[in-house]
């Protein structure tokens, strides 16, 4: 492509963004409208299959599933975004330090990365969610979960950034900057970070998807947000008990989850293709 010409936005980027925007809009706009239905108990129509009055069916207390899935969007997306943000907050500086400084710092950070990778997240989740330091207990449910996910989810960010900084650290750009006498912080801030920003954004997109899945997994084993607040993972875990009677309970929340994660992945991949066409060949 001739330099200077605008690059076409990849289809994946556009579609991913579209999906996410749609979900986000629904979460913000539609939720207040259906909130009542999501919590209204109707003992006469429990576990009823989809029909005109309840397009997605009802759950074990007669609550409209569609409304609950919509309300679940807000929590799941919020937790996902916060967890991803926290992961970035922790992983970014660590990755930069490891990649750029190398040596002892790199070794320490890499050990920490591996340790977190090895520690089963269930143990971490349990300790943080079940333990009762006073300040933690005051946080609302979803914040605590976001905290747990953030604390365990920063490893891919750090690894990725470390690899990027290792690569960039030996590039001509940095070598020449050093030759000109630029100090390290300046190099990092003015030359490296901007180029590394692209992968950071990409990683962020993937991390959001992963966090949404993790939150769902935690809800699935019962460590998630308390009832009756609906989250996609919580809805799926309820669906487990009605597998033989109510297939709609399993289908729709999972579909929503799937769309959200798909959107994040598409967006992330599209961004990567857009910002760095060379990496299209790396997975």
């Amino acid at each position, binding site marked *: 492509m001739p330099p200077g010409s605008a690059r076409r936005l990849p289809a994946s980027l556009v579609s991913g963004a579209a999906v996410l925007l749609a979900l986000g809009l629904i979460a913000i706009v539609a939720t207040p409208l259906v909130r009542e239905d999501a919590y209204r108990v109707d003992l006469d129509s429990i576990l009823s299959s989809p029909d005109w009055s309840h397009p997605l069916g009802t759950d074990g207390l007669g609550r409209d599933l569609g409304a609950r899935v919509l309300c679940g969007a807000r929590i799941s997306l919020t937790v996902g975004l916060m967890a991803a943000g926290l992961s970035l907050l922790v992983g970014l500086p660590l990755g930069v330090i490891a990649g750029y400084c190398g040596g002892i710092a790199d070794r320490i950070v890499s050990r920490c990365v591996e340790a977190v990778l090895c520690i089963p997240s269930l143990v971490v989740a349990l300790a943080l969610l079940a333990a009762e330091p006073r300040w933690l207990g005051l946080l609302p449910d979803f914040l605590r979960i976001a905290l747990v996910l953030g604390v365990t989810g920063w490893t891919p960010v750090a690894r990725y950034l470390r690899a990027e900084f290792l690569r960039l650290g030996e590039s001509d750009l940095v070598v020449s900057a050093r030759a000109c006498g630029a100090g390290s912080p300046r190099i990092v801030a003015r030359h490296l970070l901007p180029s590394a920003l692209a992968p950071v954004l990409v990683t962020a997109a993937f991390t959001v998807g992963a966090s949404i899945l993790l939150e769902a997994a935690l809800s699935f084993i*019962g460590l998630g947000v*308390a009832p009756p607040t609906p989250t996609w993972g919580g809805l799926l875990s309820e669906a487990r008990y009605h597998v*033989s009677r109510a297939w709609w309970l399993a289908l729709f929340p999972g579909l929503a989850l799937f769309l959200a994660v798909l959107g994040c992945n598409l967006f992330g991949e599209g961004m990567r293709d857009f910002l760095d066409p060379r990496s299209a060949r790396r997975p």
Partner: protein
Amino acid sequence: MRCSGRPLRLFPAWILLVLAVACSRAPETARATRPLRAGLQSYPASLSLIGNTDRNSEMIAALITEGLVAYDARLGVQPRLARSWDVSPDGLTWTFHLRDGVRWHDGAAVTAEDVVFTVEKVRDPTTQSRSYLSQFQDLVSIEAVDPLTVRARYGTPYADALDSWTLPIIPRHRAGADPDLLTGEFSRHPIGCGAFRLKSVDPGREIVLEANDGFWEGRPALDGIVLRVLPEERTAFEALLLGDLDLMSVTADLWREAQVVPRARRLARFVTYPLSAWYIGWNQDGSNPFFLDPGVRRAMVLALDRTRFVSRVLSDLARPAVGTWHPDSIWFDSSLTPWPFDPAAAGTLLDESGWRDSDGDGVRDRDGAPLSFQLMIAASSQEMTGRIAAWVQESLAKVGVRMTIERLEWKAFQERRSTHRFQAAMASLHFTPIPDQFELYHSTSRGRGLNYVGFRDEEVDRLLVEGRRTFDSRARLEIYHRIQRRIHDLEPISPLFHFASPVLHDARLEGLEPSPRGIWLIEPGPRRWRWAPPPGGD
């Protein structure tokens, strides 16, 4: 299928392979009766029968060995290893006269020494005999007066001491040889004197029992029992439908499914109500301003339409509960009925307590503070817990009470509850066949008992102590009726439901009896179960 004897070279190899596989199938059992196959929720923590006990180990102990007495289906006490007993006039000494001629599975005679040994082991805290230790705390001494007589002396007269003698007895000459009962040889191959003996175990997976020919009452009708660990009830249910399992306790959802699934038509079914109640405890130790007033506590229950919940959601597999005495037991005061659904009355009670909605936000308040509290529940494999909590929340909102739900992991829940850091807590309560509920209601049971809510009432305290000391059953009945009435008035905890334990079984299995203790832990129980003879003879 006969294995052919023709020369090998006339057959291609693959046919041989198929034949080999077919011939390796185990032959079908040719006996008329087959073992009963039932499921266990989890493998017992220990097979030592009295150590580290849980529900499953109690069940197995009841099959393999015997206690001095046992409960029947109506919760009456029946003599087993002890053919009779007497109590001294001061109520402190119990003397048991053992049956003669009872033998352990290895042929040795059952004597009073075995009883003494078992009790001593149970009282050793390292045995972790959860189900039995507390019952022997007050025992001062126990001795074998002669090979068939046991004398037990207590520190205080306790009318329900007989309950502790359902303790499964283990042989001293075998279990006594192990330095550590929980990990020794006996815990791997326990023997007893019961109707069934242990045939084999597959640790973590399966326990196989076979009939004891030398059982003192005569060989049981079943040839054997196979207990398989099936932690997921769906798995067990599928096995039951397929005919791989003969007997199973199910939940409401599966029961409902069994009504419609064609494969389940051949199954017989009945319902038994175990000794448990699902309840909400209202913390009344003063740490919150809501639950000190019995009127408020009662109002909470009046706001719940339990009958409707039972019929719509629980498929009629539960009963609204009125107290923590089992409705099918002789101790229950049948003049008491569960609080009805009456939101108007609830509203009046709350008004009278000073809780009115003064600012029109839908939530009642008093002195500027809203009637808003948090219900603590435990995360569990029962999805029903969350549903009940959400239903309570909705119902209370309609009478102007705001409730939020806090779900904790089980251990965290226990910790918070035992340190009284909660406002309301919902859980299930398991009680014993005896009428004494000291640990639940006495004011001293707050720290060292189950009185988590801090209930304190002088009359109840007095009556509880008196009930323990009274040996005359008529007088006891009167005392416990009075206790129940008073507690019903004061409503310190609100029992919501008694959940039924429906049982599905192969229709050819006969002799099962429903009881509050379940189908396994009663007398005669599994000893009288039998397979119906096949029609037309065989």
